[in-house]
């Protein structure tokens, strides 16, 4: 694949910021959108907009076909067995909350355990904290190795027969660590627990196969994978979803409504109360078409190369410390770093003056920041449209930042 060619599909990248050509290195926060996705949204509103699952009229049928067609694209994308297992939600956070509130409330009780890891994003911590508080269950953390990876030995020590839920991120949004989800799932299942996967940073960047992972639930967001904001996916094994109660009640999700009781639609619609995120789903479908045409393996290889190049280039700058797995180790294309004496906000402001967008802050991972013994870091994250030249620009600007701050002091 040719990133330079692919960049042309992203109109937003073709602009100057503060007098310099934009280098966008914040795709872990949200990715940019190709014209294919922008046009799909545009076409939907211009030609097909209508409510779904109710119209006898032509537009109603068209919108329903597009919406349900997008569901089937998602199914294929993650190799789920059936579209009944694909629930459209607002994003990863909503998906994880749905599992915690529905499956969790029904299956976790006092004395049970919920196991997560020390590297989780807040969206995979707080729903379980709340569930533990509401049920009297214990929330346990798998510790991290010195290089920011998990050891299966530690997972085995933390997960016990009392564990009801294990929830782990597939790829760390800070450390770039790629976690051995299939192995962790085995350990969860041996102990009778269900396995929940936060795939927000994995689905955009690598092949995710829910049947191969054998996980019970998996969540991801459309906006990090070239799709629009406001649409995400909860995958769940059919037999688990069948037994779960909805968490939102109202229109669209009901079968029969009586004065004092009602019944629910079948899967997956019982979880989609209210008019669904139709345009969002259509946009996500277009994003999946775009990614599939390039090929997830090609994207993964490209980013693997970028990650290695970034690690080589950035770590060579004196005074830079990089968090997470070291050079040469398998890692996702996220490079989180600090420049000695210069606070990450200041780094990000100076880079921005050079047209380079990076994230600065705690990256919604305050527990992980404590483990890193910092309050904030800077992060550069890459996607299919980034090139080695982008990383050269980053490295050159970091050198300038260092110089600038030694000048002003």
């Amino acid at each position, binding site marked *: 694949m040719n990133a330079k060619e692919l960049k042309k599909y992203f109109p937003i990248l073709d602009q100057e910021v503060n007098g310099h050509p934009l280098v966008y290195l914040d795709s872990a926060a949200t990715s940019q959108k190709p014209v294919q996705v922008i046009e799909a949204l545009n076409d939907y509103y211009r030609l097909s907009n209508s409510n779904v699952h109710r119209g006898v009229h032509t537009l109603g049928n068209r919108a329903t076909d597009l919406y349900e067609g997008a569901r089937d694209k998602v199914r294929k994308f993650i190799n789920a067995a059936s579209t009944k297992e694909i629930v459209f939600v607002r994003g990863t956070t909503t998906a994880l909350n749905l599992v915690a509130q529905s499956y969790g409330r029904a299956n976790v009780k006092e004395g049970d355990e919920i196991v997560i890891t020390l590297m989780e994003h807040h969206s995979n911590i707080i729903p379980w904290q709340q569930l533990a508080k509401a049920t009297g269950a214990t929330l346990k953390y798998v510790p991290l190795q010195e290089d920011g990876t998990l050891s299966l030995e530690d997972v085995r020590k933390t997960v016990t027969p009392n564990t009801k839920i294990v929830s782990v991120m597939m790829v760390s949004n800070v450390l770039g660590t790629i976690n051995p989800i299939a192995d962790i799932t085995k350990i969860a299942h041996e102990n009778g627990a269900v396995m929940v996967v936060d795939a927000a940073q994995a689905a955009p960047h690598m092949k995710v196969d829910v049947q191969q992972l054998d996980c019970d639930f998996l969540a991801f967001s459309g906006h990090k994978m070239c799709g629009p904001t406001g649409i995400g996916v909860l995958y769940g094994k059919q037999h688990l979803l069948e037994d779960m109660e909805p968490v939102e009640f109202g229109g669209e999700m009901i079968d029969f409504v009586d004065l004092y009781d009602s019944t629910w639609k079948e899967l997956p619609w019982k979880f989609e109360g209210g008019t669904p995120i139709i345009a969002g789903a259509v946009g996500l479908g277009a994003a999946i078409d775009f990614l599939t045409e390039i090929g997830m393996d090609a994207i993964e290889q490209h980013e693997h190369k970028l990650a290695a190049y970034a690690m080589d280039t950035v770590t060579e700058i004196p005074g830079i410390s990089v968090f997470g797995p070291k050079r040469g180790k398998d890692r996702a294309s996220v490079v989180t770093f600090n420049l000695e004496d210069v606070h990450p*906000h200041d780094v990000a*402001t100076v880079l921005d003056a050079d047209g380079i967008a990076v994230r*600065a802050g*705690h990256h919604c991972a305050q527990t992980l920041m404590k483990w890193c013994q910092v*309050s904030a870091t800077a992060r550069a994250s890459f996607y299919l449209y980034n090139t080695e030249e982008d990383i050269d620009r980053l490295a050159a600007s970091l050198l300038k930042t260092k110089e600038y701050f030694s000048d002003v*002091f």
Partner: protein
Amino acid sequence: MSFNNLDQLYRQVIMDHYKNPRNKGAIEDGSVTVDMNNPTCGDRIHLTMKVEDGLVTDAKFDGEGCSISMASASMMTQAIKGKNMDDALKLSQAFSEMMLGNDYPDDLDLDDIEALQGVAKFPARIKCATLSWKAMEKGLQSEK
């Protein structure tokens, strides 16, 4: 160096306060204590003030954050020491206006603080500059 617009943000006096913060630490017998953080970026401040007969007789801060937030805290503690609470709060009001790029009363002795004017042109950094002032306001309001 081709960072001319940045020079408006990172003025010499700001970098001096960042490198050599005034009033860093905590007052043991401080009558007012405020902890505040900026949840979006992780900056945090621990502010202690001594208020006697409506007068701020001492102020110290501890915390972590970027050059702008720490320099601003240093300047703020310097500015309010010896002022009565109303004047300190008036100063805070003027500072808010300055951050919004608005006019503010010109009869106030802002001294070093005026160096922070440039922050108004960097919207993402305004919250950094106002953190310690918000903490001071909260502390003095509760003392009133």
